[in-house]
Each structure stands twice: as C-alpha cells, then as structure tokens.
C-alpha cells in the first residue's frame, strides 16, 4: 500500500468519523444490541463483582447471536463506541484505525479512528464467567456431537465455573446418553468444586464402588498428604497416621530433611560437600592441622571438618548422634493437605472400597489373561502331548513346526491380501505343510530310533537347529507380521478393568476346538481306536491286523499338523520369527510334563497351571517378565519333586510301558 494511499484513507476515515457517524448503518435496534445496551454500564465497567447479571442475561437469552458475542468478548474483540455506547466488533486496519462490524448482522459498518472506540478488556475472572456461559451454550447445542464435544472438553480440563453451567442445563437434556454423562460429570465436578463439604461428601459417596478411572482421578488428589513434624503429639482430624523415622514409609534421611527444611534442626552435610569443604581449606598439606594423607576414612574427615567448624571456617553440621537425638524428640505424621479432613476421610473411605473392588476385578482380568495364555500353551503343547504321550517320542523340533505353520500363514498373506480369506486358507495349508514335514521326519528319522528316547531327543534337536537356520536364511532375521482379519481387532470390554482382546478369545475357542477334535478322533474314530491299541500294546495291536508303522506315522503327522495350526494362531498374536518356536517349546514341554504324559486332560490342566502360574507371578512382580519365567520354571522343578509323573499319572503296568 502506497504511502499516498494510506494518507488518503487516513483523511477519509477522520472525515467519516467526524461527519458521518450518524449516517452509518449501525443496527441499534437488533435484539442482541438491545440486550447489551440494557447492561451497557456494567459491561463497560468490566468488574468481576458486578458483571454477573450481564453475562447471565446473555447466557440465558435465547438469542442466536449471544454465543458469538460472548466469544468475541472473551477474545477481547468486542468494543464500544464511545459516543453512542453501542457495541461493535472490530478488525484492526492499522495502528490508529479499526474497522467496525455490526454485531447483529456481521456486516462491515465502516472504519473509525481507534480513539473513538473503547476496547472491553475482561479480566481473567470475567473471562472465566464468560467461558462458563459459553459452555452452557455448547452444552445446549442442538447437535448431539457438539454436546458430546463440550462434555469432552470439560472432562479434559474442568473449571469451577463449569459446574454451575452443567447444573443449569442438565435437567433439560433429552438425550438419555448425554443426560447420563452430564449427571456423572456433575457429580465428579461437585467432588472437585462443590462449595460445601457436605455437598462434596455427598458426591464422593455417590461413587462408592465405581470402577471408573475418572472417579479415582478425582478422588486421589483429595487424599494427598504431607509429612510434617512436631514436638508434641499431633492432633486434629486431618492427621492420617504417625510415622516412625527409619521405617519404609519414612527414611531417616527424609525425616531429617523435613526438620531441616522447617528450620527445626541443623543441616547435615553430604559426603561430597564435606570433601569439597575440606579440599577448599587445604593449606600446606594439612586441613585444620590434620595431615591430608591421613584423611582416608570418613571418621578422619569428620574430625577434620569438626575442627574447621570450631575454627569458624565452615558451618557446624549435625553429627550422627545429634541427628538421632533430634529425630527422637519429634513426632512425624502425615496430614491431609488437599481437602478438609471430612472430605479427605470420605474420599479415603470410598477409595478403599473402590480399591478392593478394583483388586477383585483385576483378579478377574488376570484370570482372563491366564486363560488366554493357558490356551496358547495348550495349543503349543497339544501336538507335543500327542507325539510324546502316544509314541513316547520327544520331538525337539516341535517348536519349529509351530514356526513353519506361522510362516505358512505369512506366505499365504503375501498372495492373498484379504485377511479373512488368507487366514481361512492358511489354517488347512499350515496343517498340510507341517503334517507332511512330520510324516517325512517320522519316516526318515524317528522310525529308526523307537525305544531310544534320548537319541530321538538329540536327532530331533538336530532337525530343529537346521530348520531354524533354514527359516532364518529364507525369511531373514526380522519379525514378519501375520495380520489378523479386521473383525478380530479390538477387545471385549466388561468394564474399565476387565477386558480381553478378540484375538485371545479366538485362540481360546481354537484351543477348545482342538480339545474337542482330539477327543473325537481318539474316542470316536477307527484311527483313535487303533492309536490307543498301538499305545497300549504295539505287538498285540500288530497281531490284530493294525499296522503300527502306519499308525505311528499318522499320529506323528497329526501332532505336527496341530503344531502348524497352533503356529498360525500364535503368529496372529505374536510376531513371526525363526526363533518363535524356541520361545514356546520349553513351556510346552513343561505343560506336558506337569500335566502328565498320555492324557489330554492332563495337558489341559498342565497348560492351565503353567499359564496361571506365569500370570500370577507376573502380577506379583509386574516389571519383570524374565523373573516371572525364572520363578515359574523353579516352581515346576519343585512340582516335579512331588508329582514326578505329572498331575494325572498313569499307575501300574501301563506306567512302565
């Protein structure tokens, strides 16, 4: 903009202001302007104390323009024309000129010199009131989504003014969901901002037994405590408990620091500070007459420092004995600081109740976790239980069959992008691949090693390391994803604490299906009958026309195939790597051994025990999964001491077979 042009506009605006004011199309009769004019004085006065009626009037008016006025006012964009007292919005043109906009129509009225206008500058108190009034408008917005958004905003960042606004609008709310939300939010806000203790305690008690995280978030600050010290025994309702220095809740150092902070005791000095002080006072190889070379123990340094203190070079500090004495003469206690004792006590009582309930629900959640872990172990172990239980063959490569199944799923997903379809294809394919691998292995290796369990163990181990390395060479070392179909995303949520993801439910269902399948095959089919016959007495079975070779081959294939399917399931919930089999194999062995060999129910019990145990230990020591696994294995080693043959043990001649 050229200087010349600006000059002209300047002239024009001055002229306009001076000459043409009455001629401006200011809509002084608009209802909103009228309303503002009614309270013009107090608005212009802009005092926290008196502004109430004005904001109330705007807030309770049903004028469509009211929210906009409030927003502009809050943003300091509402100005008043000094001469007429009419309210306008403005836009800055330059440092001396503002463009006026009609508050009713939103049309530009014209430009005017800044000095003819007065900006309303609401202080923060007033802005808060305006905000509350605005919230009320938002809460009454015809759109449900907008009302929800307003509630979200309050939940995120509540202020005391929101409480009144909420109370004003909640009764008129028609949408039942939103009404419920509002009612709950009103109670929560009352806890925080309620005016009287009674009101707040009422609200607190309202939430007895409520598991919501928001409730605990509202209550926890109320029971905040501060540790204080006094020479006399503390009195008053707000004293939570008396603490002993040196206990777990209050270390001696912390206790003494409290006294020092309250200037009730002489400060102590840290070892480092003491050393610095001594170094600072070295002269001619001595400190306060003590040879530096002899200062190689804390006692010697203490003495030297005390000597310095006597000379007045450094401040005297408390010795250990003095610390003991001082600590002994004070009583330490916790005091509620965030709320009045009555409120704090009520909050503490409700919190205790909630925590009990939370613990119960966490136990339930833990149980769900344990069940899902148990189903994974069961899936991983069932194939092993078949080969170990039926054929007395330890298959160390079982874990690698799980891995093969998972990689089969991964490969299928490379060709079939639809996740649902690819999983449906992957399961039978994984079974087929691992069934084939199992049969091949049985024919080539295991068949030659029957009744040589240790050799079988080692030979299958050789296969295991070879398979693992081959997988690494083909697929690389990085984890490959096996993506679950969309409908398995998310969780089944019971409440804020108890939930379980759909994938885990699917794995659980799969485990049940396998149990049913196994029971069906073993108890209701010809194959099962023959398998049981071969298990119990291979020679007799052979003489009855059953081919034990064929049965062994099929059994091994079947067990391996199930490992393949388990691999797909495990791959969905964990990553697919060449080492994933090794991660599960020891737990799977444990499951079989703990459960007892040769009995599917034993495997089920074993999986439950191992799963529950692992989750239980993790719960006791949540930060450390490694420790949980360590202790679980130790437990199992001890368990074997008492039940060497597992939970369900075969007795008599069958056990020696």
């Amino acid at each position, binding site marked *: 903009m050229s200087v010349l042009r600006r000059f002209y506009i300047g002239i024009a605006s001055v002229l306009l202001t001076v000459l043409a004011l009455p001629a401006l199309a200011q809509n002084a009769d608009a209802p909103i302007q009228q309303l503002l004019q009614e309270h013009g004085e107090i608005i212009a006065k802009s005092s926290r104390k008196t502004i109430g009626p004005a904001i109330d009037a705007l807030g309770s008016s049903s004028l469509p323009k009211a929210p906009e006025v409030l927003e502009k006012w809050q943003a300091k964009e509402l100005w008043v024309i000094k001469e007429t007292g009419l309210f306008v919005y403005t836009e800055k043109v330059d440092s001396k000129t503002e463009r006026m906009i009609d508050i009713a129509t939103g049309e530009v009225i014209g430009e005017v010199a800044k000095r003819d206008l007065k900006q309303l500058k609401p202080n923060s108190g007033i802005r808060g009131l305006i905000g509350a009034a605005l919230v009320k408008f938002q809460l009454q917005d015809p759109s449900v989504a907008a009302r929800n958004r307003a509630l979200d905003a309050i939940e995120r960042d509540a202020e005391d003014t929101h409480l009144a606004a909420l109370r004003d609008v909640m009764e008129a709310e028609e949408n039942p969901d939103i009404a419920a939300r509002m009612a709950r939010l009103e109670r929560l806000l009352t806890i925080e901002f309620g005016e009287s203790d009674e009101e707040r305690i009422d609200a607190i008690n309202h939430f007895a037994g409520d598991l919501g995280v928001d409730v605990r978030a509202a209550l926890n600050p109320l029971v905040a405590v501060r540790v204080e010290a006094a020479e006399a025994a503390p009195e008053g309702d707000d004293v939570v408990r008396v603490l002993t220095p040196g206990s777990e809740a209050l270390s001696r150092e912390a206790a003494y620091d409290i006294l020092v902070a309250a200037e009730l005791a002489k400060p102590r000095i840290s070892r480092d500070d003491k050393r610095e002080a001594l170094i600072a006072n070295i002269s001619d190889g001595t400190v306060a007459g003590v040879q530096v070379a002899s200062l190689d123990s804390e006692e010697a340094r203490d003495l030297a420092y005390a000597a310095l203190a006597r000379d007045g070079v450094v401040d005297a500090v408390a010795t250990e004995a003095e610390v003991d004495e001082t600590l002994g003469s004070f009583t330490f206690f916790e005091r509620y600081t965030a709320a009045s004792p009555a409120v704090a006590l009520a909050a503490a009582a409700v919190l205790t109740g909630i925590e009990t309930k939370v613990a119960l629900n966490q136990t339930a959640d833990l149980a769900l976790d344990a069940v899902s872990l148990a189903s994974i172990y069961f899936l991983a172990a069932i194939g092993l239980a078949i080969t170990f239980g039926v054929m007395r063959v330890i298959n160390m490569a079982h874990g690698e069959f799980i891995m093969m199944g998972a990689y089969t799923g991964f490969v299928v997903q490379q060709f079939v992008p639809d996740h649902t379809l690819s999983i449906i294809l992957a399961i039978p394919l994984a079974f087929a691949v691992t069934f084939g691998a199992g049969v091949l292995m049985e024919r080539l290796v295991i068949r030659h090693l029957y009744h040589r369990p240790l050799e079988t163990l080692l030979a299958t181990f050789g296969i295991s390391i070879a398979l693992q390395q081959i997988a690494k060479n083909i697929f690389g070392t990085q984890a490959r994803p096996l993506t679950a179909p969309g409908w398995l995303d998310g969780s089944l949520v019971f409440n804020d604490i108890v939930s379980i993801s759909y994938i885990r439910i699917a794995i659980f269902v799969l485990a049940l299906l396998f149990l049913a399948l196994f029971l069906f095959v073993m108890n209701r089919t010809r194959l099962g009958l023959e398998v049981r016959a071969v298990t119990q007495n291979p020679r007799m079975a052979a003489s009855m026309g059953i081919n034990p070779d064929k049965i062994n081959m099929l059994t091994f294939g079947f067990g391996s195939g199930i490992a393949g399917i388990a691999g797909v399931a495990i791959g969905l919930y964990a990553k697919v790597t060449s080492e994933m089999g090794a991660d599960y194999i020891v737990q799977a062995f444990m499951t079989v051994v703990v459960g007892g060999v040769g009995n599917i129910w034993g495997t089920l019990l074993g999986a439950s025990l191992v799963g529950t145990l692992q989750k239980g230990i993790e719960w006791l020591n949540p930060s450390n999964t490694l420790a949980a696994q360590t202790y679980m294995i130790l437990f199992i080693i001890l368990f074997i001491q008492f039940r060497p043959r597992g939970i369900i043990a*075969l*007795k*008599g*001649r*069958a056990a020696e077979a």
Partner: protein
Amino acid sequence: MSTLLEVSGVSVSFDGFKAINNLSFEIGERELRAVIGPNGAGKTTFMDIITGKTKPDEGRVLWGDKSQSLLAMSESKIAQAGVGRKFQRPTVFEDQSVAENLMLALRKSRNPFSVLRFKASAEDETRVEELATEIGLSGALARKAGELSHGQKQWLEIGMLLAQDPKLLLVDEPAAGMTPTEREHTTDLLVEAAKTRAVVVVEHDMEFVRRLDCRVTVLHEGSVLAEGSIDHVTSDAQVIEVYLGR
C-alpha cells in the same frame, strides 16, 4: 526254625484293579518254597512288594529276627538287608565281562566312596572264580555277558545272586527257555542254595516244581489259594479248577 520273612494282610491295586488282595505269606530261614499260579495271579507284584519296587496300599512286610518293616526301606536298602532277586528275563550287564558282573554283585560295601577306592583283593578274585565254577562259567570270565547263551545268562544271574550272599533269594521263572540239561543244573543250584538260605521260586512249570520237592504256595487273584506239598496242592479241588477250569 524261625521266620525270616512275614507278609501279612497285604493289598495293592492299580487304577482300581486289585493285583494283590489281603495276601499273607511266611518263610523260614533255610527253606525252599515254590510259588505257582496262573497268569495275573499276582506273582510278580508279590515279588515287587518284597523287594520294595511297589509299595502296598495296606498290610505289613516284616523281615528277620528283629521284625524290621521292609516297607519303609528303599530297594537298595532291602537288597543290602539280604533280599536278592532274579528277574524273569535274564538281566545281566551285557556290556561288561562275566567277571565284572560277578564282582559287581559280590557282597561288599555299596557306598560310592568306598567303591571308588575299591581294589579287588586276592580273596575277592578267588571268590569270583569259585562262583564262576559253581555256575559253570569258569572258562568265560573274560567274555562279555552279552555273548553268553540264554541259559548261561540265567546262570550268571543266579551266580550274581549267590555272590550277593542274600538271606532270601527270590527267583522268577528260572527255567524258562532252558534245555533239559540246563534245567537239571538249575534245580541243583537252587536246592544247594536253599541249604544255607531261604529260596522262593516262582514257576509255571509243574514238572520243574515237582523236581524241587518242596513246599508249594498257590496264588490266585492276588491271594493264597492253597499251600502244602506238591501232591497235596495238585489234589486240591480249587487248585484244579483254577488251573484247568479255564
């Protein structure tokens, strides 16, 4: 003649099946006894109980002058106390020589540390050679047990039992799979052994039992059906029914 072993009221069951049912049995210090019974009569389980392999559900097993209970003892302790057992299938250590097998069995301290320091004395070697002669294997001392014939293995096992010098010898079907001459030799060995100790022979073969010429106990369904001389037992109506009625 005082009682060496007293089994009374012993029962044991496997998964509901009663293998031994309220069985009582006694044997003196120098006695040869044959135990017979059809398949499944509980003969092997009976020996398992005495040797500590199977623990009974109820009943008592008392041993020796001091009436020590065998139930609280481990297999090795029972063996050290003087119970020797010969299994149905010859179980000798086939990877080791006949001499090593006999030396293993020789009555010496079984403690690992004394075994570690063990050096065979001339006396021990003489004893091993004596035993070998007794069982007809003096020429085969250096051979591996695995190379022996079936009958020779049976003898070696009996020789190992004799080397153990037990007070009670439990022998399970010693004559199975032997030629007639070998059988005769076996009978002689057992009869000879019974002169210095108690011997219990479990056997199927009536002819073999008859040749032993001793008291016979008949087991059936886990308890004693009849006891007495071979002629007495074979004329017992119940025994005939059990053996022939099936």
